[in-house]
């Protein structure tokens, strides 16, 4: 079963600051689709170095959303890409799809 995102880290960081919580979620909602599009733009054209760079960014989102196993997967995938490989692509793409669905609900 694929790991599910959550807002535990954001809630802890926000505390009673509802304003920050809302603003932060808005930032995630606006930034994630752009990064996801950038990722597919690079990987679909076999630009591995550029793909590795955007995976590096995306893995931070995984951590923010409490997806620690997915973060480890992204670390592996980033290394693969730097060697011109992409064995973890399918699993990584699944994580992106999961997050995409999740952020529609928050």
């Amino acid at each position, binding site marked *: 079963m694929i790991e599910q995102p959550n807002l535990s880290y954001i809630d802890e960081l926000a505390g009673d*600051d509802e304003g920050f919580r809302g603003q932060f979620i808005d930032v995630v909602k606006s930034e994630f689709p752009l990064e996801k599009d950038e990722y597919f733009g690079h990987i679909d054209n076999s630009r591995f170095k550029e793909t590795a760079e955007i995976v590096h960014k995306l893995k931070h989102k995984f*951590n923010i959303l409490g997806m620690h196993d997915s973060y480890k997967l992204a670390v592996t995938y980033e290394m693969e890409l730097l060697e011109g490989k992409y064995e973890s692509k399918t699993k990584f793409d699944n994580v992106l799809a999961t997050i995409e669905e999740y952020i529609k609900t928050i």
Partner: protein
Amino acid sequence: MNCIIIDDEATARAIVKQLCTKVEELDVIEEFDNAISAIKFLNQNSIDVIFLDVHMPGFSGVDFVQTLKDPPKVVMTTSDTDFAIAAYEYECIVDYLVKPITLERFQKCLLKIKNSSAKRPQIPTANQENAQEEDLYINIDRRLIKLKLNDILVIEAKGDYIEIKTEKEEHRVHTTLKKIKEKLPEKLFLQIHRSYIINFTKIIDIEDNSVLIAKNVVPISRSNRPELMRRLNLL
């Protein structure tokens, strides 16, 4: 303490900003999504602390640190846990934080900032440096030819020789770039590529990864670029 945040990710900047509000001793006065804008800001503003992302496209956090003339305290932020060793190669770096940053870890970082007196050694200014010779004698066909140092534009390594280009002529000398570099005053000359030394005062413009000096387009290597950027008086 005044601080700025440099990170290409908006979420990462938001997190550090929020953490700063929680500790109340750090005032975030500006945020930047790229290092170049931050360099311009720092040339005109004095701040106490920089929160700096290690991994940014084009100009990394480490490149940025090398660029700073008189760096304030720097806290590196990174998604990579193996950055610690590299971080402590620079005296101005007082701590590094692995993302996602927790409040508890951030509070420890604040203590490190307050307890640290880290400052990178000052680079000697032109006035502090010893007076430099103004001429250079080069050996060509058993003749010693005098060149005014200030007339030299570019020196290029070509195999066992170097080519010295001035505004009016070119000289080919049997020596290495390393040897001639030792004879050149640092305030005038800068190595910007393993094959090129330039007269820093003769730069016309800089574009991407090259410098224009008179009619010479000279490449800038990635490793030498931070020092070049550091020497520029950026507006």
